[in-house]
């Protein structure tokens, strides 16, 4: 039986007194002429009291950390037991250069690697493809073959450090993750020792970074599921997917959409795994999530907490899992890149610090803090270091790690968490009504929802309704840039040269046979990752693998606008 936190008499008395306070005291003062609501549009009242939590049953709705509904945290001890992983994103230029940056960050106390790939790699193109030339080494590190992967992780103890591969699109992930695994095997490290995460989210390909000529949603989803299936059998410590809510949010969606889309995506993947004959509890504990930390401090904390409760409830209802770990919403947070400004860029240090604090008060498992120069360029060594130090200051100096879920029980935060949960549930129902997330992506609905929200946001900034320091208020006229910008080292020549040598040295017949096997594997609808881990050893390239897949799956021209 539900037991509410406050008895009815007490709540009634509070209501009477609060009403009197409002009329006699509060309303004698003036409020600023603005709309009080969160970034995602939840109304915010001047004051929250036990009235707002009158129907809350502590044991049912909050409970304890490490147990259902996990709202207070997925681990019983949270940061008293272990700090969150300080996982700074890095990647640019050729793998030789990014390798140096990884080593630098590890030496400075980073506790995980977060590797991002350049645009051609993310979209499944080789560096020597004419369409790729201008983007090689941009936005991430360039990977064409397993040899590049050997270089990228050379001298890094991958059996000890957990590595996140920000492979975004499944077309990239299936090859790049296979290359990572092949590299480990080559170094004598069995796959079951590898800890890490790959992003591998089909919405990245079909709703978030969409471009003409991508894989059709169903094919992209299939590749994503191949990696999940493979890892559940052979790499049990690897999180084979990190549902990329962060990127949906960067593209423009709201906080509740961000969570609803990742959960709908996790449900679809789970249904597919079960269809493939896997036990739910054999893969579900390794499904992981990636969320943003945007400007609205309390909304973000409410979002993380609501995500945990919705997930645990929804999963229990849909799949009836036995293993509680299957119902844990574990997530990495990146501070919102879209919230950074090119104007007065050092202000971004303050922004990212608030974002990171929200992530930690919300119970994140791992965090990346954005560097102050990211609205202008790829981070310099100094800006990356400042970002890492921001995490270390948060952990060591602020005291926020001393107790679990320190804001739990706040009348405001719990109310906002409840409102967030309700809205997430509503969106989940809408997606379910469309036949699930793959169908919703095929219709272009997800992309439409994200772009509509982005447009609304921009007009709010434009009107000044949403103040952004340095952009629509507190500007500096003729500002002189106070920082040095990073320029990407020469990449295209290096990658092309390596590819020329590779194509000359490898055995053509072997390559052809392998690529043919890739196409046939697609035709037979078998698991590609099992094949690719062997295939990359004969030095087929990422671009060649993508072409072999597209020969079978074709390409999709998504609704763009």
């Amino acid at each position, binding site marked *: 039986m539900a037991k509410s936190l406050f008895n009815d008499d007490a709540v009634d008395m509070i209501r009477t007194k609060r009403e009197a306070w409002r009329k006699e005291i509060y309303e004698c003062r003036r409020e600023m002429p603005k709309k009080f609501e969160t970034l995602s549009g939840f109304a915010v009242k001047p004051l929250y009291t036990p009235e707002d939590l009158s129907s809350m049953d502590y044991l049912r709705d909050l409970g304890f950390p490490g147990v259902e509904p996990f709202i207070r945290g997925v681990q019983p001890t949270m940061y008293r037991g272990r700090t969150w992983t300080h996982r700074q994103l890095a990647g640019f230029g050729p793998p030789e250069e990014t390798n140096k940056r990884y080593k630098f960050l590890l030496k400075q106390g980073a506790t995980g690697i977060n590797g991002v790939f350049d*645009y051609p790699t993310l979209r499944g193109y080789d560096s020597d493809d004419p369409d*790729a030339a201008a983007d090689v080494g941009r936005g991430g590190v360039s990977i064409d073959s397993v040899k590049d992967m050997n270089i990228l992780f050379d001298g890094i103890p991958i059996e000890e450090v957990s590595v996140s591969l920000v492979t975004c699109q499944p077309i990239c992930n299936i090859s790049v993750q296979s290359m990572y695994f092949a590299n480990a095997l080559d170094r004598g490290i069995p796959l079951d020792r590898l800890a890490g995460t790959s992003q591998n989210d089909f919405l990245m390909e079909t709703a978030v970074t969409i471009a*003409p000529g991508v894989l059709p949603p169903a094919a992209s989803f299939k590749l994503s599921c191949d990696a999940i299936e493979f890892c559940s059998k052979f790499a049990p410590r690897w999180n084979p997917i990190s549902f990329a809510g962060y990127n949906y949010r960067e*593209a423009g969606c709201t906080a509740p959409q961000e969570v609803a889309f990742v959960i709908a995506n996790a449900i679809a993947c789970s249904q597919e795994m079960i269809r493939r004959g896997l036990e739910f509890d054999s893969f579900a504990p390794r499904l992981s999530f990636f969320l943003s930390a945007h400007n609205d401090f309390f909304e973000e904390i409410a979002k993380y907490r609501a995500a945990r409760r919705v997930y645990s409830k929804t999963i229990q209802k849909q799949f009836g899992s036995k293993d509680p770990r299957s119902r844990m919403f574990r997530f990495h947070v990146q501070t919102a890149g879209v919230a950074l400004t090119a104007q007065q860029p050092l202000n971004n240090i303050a922004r990212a610090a608030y974002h990171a604090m929200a992530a930690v008060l919300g119970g994140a498992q791992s965090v990346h803090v954005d560097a102050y120069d990211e609205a202008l360029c790829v981070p310099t060594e100094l800006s990356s270091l400042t970002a890492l130090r921001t995490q270390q200051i948060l952990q060591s100096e602020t005291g926020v790690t001393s107790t679990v879920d320190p804001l739990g029980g706040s009348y405001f935060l719990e109310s906002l968490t409840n409102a967030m949960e309700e809205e997430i549930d509503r969106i989940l129902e809408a997606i379910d009504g469309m036949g699930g997330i793959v169908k919703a992506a095929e219709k272009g609905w997800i992309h439409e929802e994200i772009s509509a929200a982005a*447009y609304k946001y921009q007009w709010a900034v*434009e009107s000044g309704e949403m103040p952004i320091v*340095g952009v629509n208020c507190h500007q500096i006229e003729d500002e002189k840039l106070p920082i040095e910008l990073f320029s990407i080292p020469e990449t295209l020549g290096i990658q092309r040269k390596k590819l020329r040598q590779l194509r000359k040295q490898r055995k053509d017949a072997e390559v052809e046979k392998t690529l043919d096997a890739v196409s046939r594997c697609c035709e037979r609808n078998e698991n590609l990752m099992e094949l690719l881990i062997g295939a990359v050893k004969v030095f087929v390239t990422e671009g060649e693998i993508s072409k072999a897949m597209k020969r079978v799956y074709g390409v999709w021209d998504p609704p763009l606008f």
Partner: protein
Amino acid sequence: MEKKIRILIARLGMDAHWRGSIVVAKALRDAGMEIIYGGNQNPDNIVRMALQEDVDIIGLSSLSGNHLELAPKVVKLLKKEKAGDIKVIFGGTVAPDDIPKLKKAGIVEVFGPGSSLKKIIESVTKIAGGSAN
């Protein structure tokens, strides 16, 4: 009735960010212009689409840093096709030092991060030499 301004919005190369390009495209559409949204394209395709669609302006978008290589190519190709009257503008992540370089290469206007939609609409209207409606 005055002819509507026709504008092709395209993302340069393989840049993965569409938010800016779509938000600007929607704003220009709501200001009464006709939008052809090309998504990611290489300079050859951008120019081909611009000619086919008979646009007044090409709006290029990129956050990847490929702008100095690809945006000037679009201007050059237009001239080669004797379509130098089609004006090219650019929006995206751009280092302040790159702005004069882009302008020198014939890009008539550059909008960096934080640019106002109203200013973009005004500027496009002026460049096209007419009113938006």
